[in-house]
């Protein structure tokens, strides 16, 4: 009856353990907050599928092979997948070919900064060795330090359970914009905890006094929209890599989820990430936040229904329609950019000089940046459909204008035919085309996963077992 339920509520948050310092293990927090813990554990579920999204494995290079050409010469051309749940963050970064197969500390292609958004051990480690020190190592140096995936300690203050910002990059980005993140309202915090990671970033290697650090930085100083960030990188003369085909200094856009979401009507109306991805839920009279973060389409009744009184299928098709219309544009666009790289390579082969190429490479750099910005945020097509579409339009115009330039250049070099293209329908063909030996990479990775990772885990567990857990006698 109703009274039972009242009393139930009272006992809901009987603390069982005393959380001390930065506790990276969710299982410990879970003793105090079973509902949140149990729902968060569900992020390991990989069974949900929507039209374009999935909580499981999806090889993006398989579904959109052109990406191999766009990212030639860069790690992403080896391996890139759609996101899975938070539970998999550490597992996936160990498994991706992008991190290579470092058999010993100090080896491998990636810096320690890569760990930043993958684990609750990161705030712990930062607090122990300092932020800039954390950014100044190899990824392989911290293998035994970072073993817990994203969890409670990333978003919560253990004493008060208040939402908290544990990643310096976001705080510094606010400072760069002349804002104080401590002034953020509670509703804003319900999005800002996500903005610690779901944002475009780059590694600043020129930080005064920190030359050997790869300092995680969000390029927001002059604004968060795609044009201003583009300007920011141009002025800093920054590039992530140089493209082997078109010799273009390229930019990589990574998941600007927060930035694009802010351009949508939901953000304008004050709807937060958590409102949709972590809706409140009530169990036996006890209200709590559902921590099974994933596609809201898996949970329309608790997510969208709170504000929309439509049929489930109408809300689902709302999302699909927007995604389909955006996808139509980006699919065409990525093919055009791939062709531009190959056409430019042809011009270079025919002896085009730097001055002839300058404008063309600028065009490719900007077009691919904008394309990447619009697709790297897997939610963008729904978060802000029109802004995403606007970006796609501008990139389409840009790359085609550039291809007109290339066509003129080729003609002036005596070549007036369409440039022959590889088979864009096969990931393997294209990876071979750009000279990757994937089988070799894969077997090296396998050895790494068999021999190194288990060792990392063993050492990590041993370290954790030192840390005692203070239990509280309940009364």
């Amino acid at each position, binding site marked *: 009856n109703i009274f039972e339920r009242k009393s139930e509520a009272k006992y809901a948050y009987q603390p069982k353990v005393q959380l001390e310092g930065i506790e990276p293990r969710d299982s410990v927090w879970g003793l105090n907050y079973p509902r949140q813990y149990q729902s968060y554990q569900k992020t390991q579920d990989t069974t949900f599928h929507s039209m374009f999204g999935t909580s499981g494995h999806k090889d993006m290079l398989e579904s959109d092979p052109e990406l191999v050409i766009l990212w030639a010469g860069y790690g992403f051309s080896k391996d890139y997948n759609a996101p899975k749940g938070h539970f998999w963050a550490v597992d996936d970064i160990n498994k991706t070919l992008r991190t290579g197969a470092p058999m010993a500390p100090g080896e491998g292609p990636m810096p320690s900064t890569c760990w930043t958004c993958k684990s609750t051990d990161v*705030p712990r480690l930062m607090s122990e060795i300092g932020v800039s020190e954390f950014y100044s190592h190899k990824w392989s140096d911290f293998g035994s330090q970072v073993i817990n995936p994203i969890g409670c300690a990333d978003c919560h203050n253990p004493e008060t359970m*208040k939402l908290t910002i*544990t990643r310096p990059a976001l705080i*510094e980005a606010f400072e760069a914009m002349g804002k104080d993140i401590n002034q953020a309202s509670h509703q804003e915090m319900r999005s800002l905890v996500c903005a610690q990671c779901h944002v475009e970033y780059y590694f600043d290697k020129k930080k005064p006094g920190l030359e050997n650090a790869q300092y995680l930085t969000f390029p927001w100083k002059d604004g968060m929209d795609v044009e201003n960030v583009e300007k920011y990188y141009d002025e800093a003369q920054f590039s992530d890599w140089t493209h082997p085909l078109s010799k273009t200094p390229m930019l990589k856009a990574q998941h600007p989820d927060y930035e694009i979401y802010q351009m949508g009507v939901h953000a304008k109306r004050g709807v937060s990430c958590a409102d949709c991805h972590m809706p409140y839920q009530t169990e036996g009279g006890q209200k709590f*936040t559902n921590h099974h973060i994933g596609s809201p389409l898996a949970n329309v009744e608790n997510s969208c229904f*709170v504000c929309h009184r439509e049929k489930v299928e109408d809300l689902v098709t709302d999302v699909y329609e927007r995604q389909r219309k955006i996808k139509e544009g980006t699919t065409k666009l990525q093919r055009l950019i791939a062709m531009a790289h190959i056409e430019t390579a042809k011009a270079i082969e025919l002896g085009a000089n730097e001055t002839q190429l300058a404008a063309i490479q600028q065009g490719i750099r900007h077009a691919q940046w904008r394309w990447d910005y619009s697709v790297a945020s897997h939610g963008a097509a729904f978060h802000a459909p029109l802004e995403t579409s606007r970006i796609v339009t501008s990139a389409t115009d840009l790359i085609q204008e550039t291809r007109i330039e290339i066509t003129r250049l080729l003609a002036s070099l005596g070549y007036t035919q369409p440039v022959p293209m590889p088979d864009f329908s096969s990931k393997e063909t294209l990876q071979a085309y750009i000279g990757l030996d994937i089988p070799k990479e894969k077997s090296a990775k396998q050895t790494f996963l068999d021999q190194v990772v288990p060792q990392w885990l063993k050492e990590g567990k041993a370290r954790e077992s030192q840390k005692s857990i203070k239990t509280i006698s309940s009364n």
Partner: protein
Amino acid sequence: MQPQYITWTHSSHREVASCNDCHVPHNNIANKYFFKAKDGLYHATVFTMRAEPQVIRARQPSIEVIQANCVRCHQDQVTDAKMDAFVADHTANRTDRTCWECHRDVPHGRVRSLSSVGAQIEPIKEYSSSDLSVIPGWLKETMKSQKSKPN
């Protein structure tokens, strides 16, 4: 049903219309008590059986009841006595579309879920800890020290 109660108490209708004014038929006494009993019983069962969904939605029968009640009170505002005379379907045109298709906030507002109102988890600044900082102490320290002496 707490959210419905709370939203109603904040609505323009609190003073003028009670739950039953909208949710129980007023066409005839017998019907009124029959529906109420049936309804109340249903709710009570669902409630005590813990089947209460996160977001309650009106079922067709009660949608019709509500609509009828909107019209009952607002008839003369929404339909024009003079039009009725000879504008065919005038009354139908004004009353066949659920009122809250437009009046989306009457009376329960637009955000309706068991958790959307009432015992808010959201801390009211006045009552929350004096330290409003969202940056943990350790991070403030490391960042400060870093600014003072890079490396």
